[in-house]
């Protein structure tokens, strides 16, 4: 019987080369990217107006030389430094708010109320106020960044804590955990999928907000960030540089989302089977 079946049924057969290539989504997307770049190049050449729309080649060239001259790396570093400060401060306040919300019912109400009020408010809309209160400088950038990060992180962390199963809570208490040890060893890891979501949303808000805020004003202590770089070059009609700056903004966004967070996700929630 088994032999008979073996003669009739193909058990394992390699796919054809084309089937394998077309089955690879990374390859398909790369091909699309190449097509888009080609289309851009052709269109820009036909338009022949570098002030409005530089060619793909010119953009790449501007990007290359801005990197080689160290301008873009320096501006990027500046942006990332401000971002890191704002992100960290946002996380700090989110931790306080979440702790309060986890410990008391009135804290929960406060968190829900504040989040409902401030989450729909784009951080950039707070910039005029921030400039008035904190002054021109990194201070007001950090102010709007905190606003960008705080609500999504606090809300998601709190929701994550609440979704931790009763069984896990009982296990933690059974082995004698309470207070901060209980939070650190049970609640935080058990709620990590939610927390990570909050961190990702917070990052996305923060990065967009920072670039936008830098466009409005970005110079302090003689150097600005990437947003300022874009704004500056637009004023000088160096449009290829503007494109190079935007390109960098995109690249960093992609890197953080698809490399940094993807790695964290793979090493934690995916590995633990808490998210598929």
């Amino acid at each position: 019987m088994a032999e008979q079946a073996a003669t009739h049924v193909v058990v394992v057969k390699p796919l054809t080369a084309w089937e394998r290539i077309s089955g690879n989504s990374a390859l398909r997307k790369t091909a699309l990217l190449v097509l888009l770049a080609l289309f851009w190049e052709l269109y820009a050449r036909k338009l022949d107006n570098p002030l409005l729309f530089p060619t793909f080649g010119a953009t790449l060239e501007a990007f290359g030389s801005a990197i080689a001259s160290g301008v873009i790396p320096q501006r990027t570093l500046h942006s990332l430094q401000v971002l890191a400060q704002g992100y960290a401060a946002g996380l700090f306040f989110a931790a306080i708010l979440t702790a309060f919300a986890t410990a008391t019912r009135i804290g929960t109400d406060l968190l829900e109320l504040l989040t409902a009020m401030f989450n729909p408010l784009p951080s950039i809309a707070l910039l005029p106020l921030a400039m008035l209160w904190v002054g021109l400088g990194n201070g007001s950038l950090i102010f709007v960044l905190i606003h960008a990060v705080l609500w999504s992180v606090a809300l998601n962390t709190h929701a994550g804590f609440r979704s931790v199963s009763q069984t896990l809570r009982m296990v933690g208490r059974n082995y004698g955990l309470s207070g901060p040890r209980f939070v650190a060893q049970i609640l935080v890891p058990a709620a990590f999928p939610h927390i990570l979501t909050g961190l990702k949303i917070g990052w996305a808000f923060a990065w967009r907000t920072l670039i936008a805020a830098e466009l409005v004003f970005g110079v302090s202590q003689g150097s600005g960030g990437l947003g300022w770089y874009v704004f500056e070059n637009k004023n000088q009609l160096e449009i290829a540089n503007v494109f190079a700056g935007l390109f960098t903004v995109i690249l960093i966004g992609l890197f953080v989302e698809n490399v940094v967070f993807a790695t964290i996700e793979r090493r934690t929630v995916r590995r633990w089977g808490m998210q598929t």
Partner: protein
Amino acid sequence: MADPAAERAPALLEVRGVTLQYKTREHLVTATYRVGFEVSRSDRFVMLGPSGCGKSTLLKAVGGYLAPVEGEIRLNGRVIDKPGPDRVMVFQEFDQLLPWKTVKENVVFALRASGKLKGRAADEKALATIEKVGLTKFADTLPHQLSGGMKQRVAIARAMAVEPDILLMDEPFAALDALTRRKMQEELLRLWEDTRFTVLFVTHSIPEAVRVGNRILLLSPHPGQVKAEMQSSGRDEERLSQRIHEMLFSEKVEEATDG
């Protein structure tokens, strides 16, 4: 109920006239009404009854998660007022293992959190206990890669590693398939032969109660009350099952709901 205490060693766990209540969104439910029993060292004490007899609630109260509104629960003569590693629970749910820790780390976690052992000693103890339940090969595996039966074995190993005064098991095999369930029951008995730990075991399955327990407390539902207490010698399982069946279903047929 009133067993001559002289026959056995002094009771390890005393439950005296315990009434338990809990609130749902709309009701105040009385789960048990003036329940009393005693568990001695090395007993395999089974609480058996249909759903609604408060057996799980009673186990949670022994675990210290719920305070009685009436009566008291004492372990080694001390009133139980909060959860602690001297009474370790094994739950029915598979998610009782910390999914972010491997099998070994789960056991080590229990040892460290409870303050029983630290560092190397905890690692060694964990591995030794894991070996007892036959999972040495899976020590570095994460829980989501294990089968249901294996997860329950890890939970049992984790509980045993801490060497609690009493092991509290809340229908630990109820979510397993019949074959695995049978195997786990035998394994539990084998482990018991080894160290003779005390276990308080909750189930709604008569065959399981008869197989696992040496003493069986029969509870009737709404609210949970003690109906009878009996010994299971391990012989004559058939007749004991038959007797329990008759006692549970003799008067009220309508109580035989889901289970």
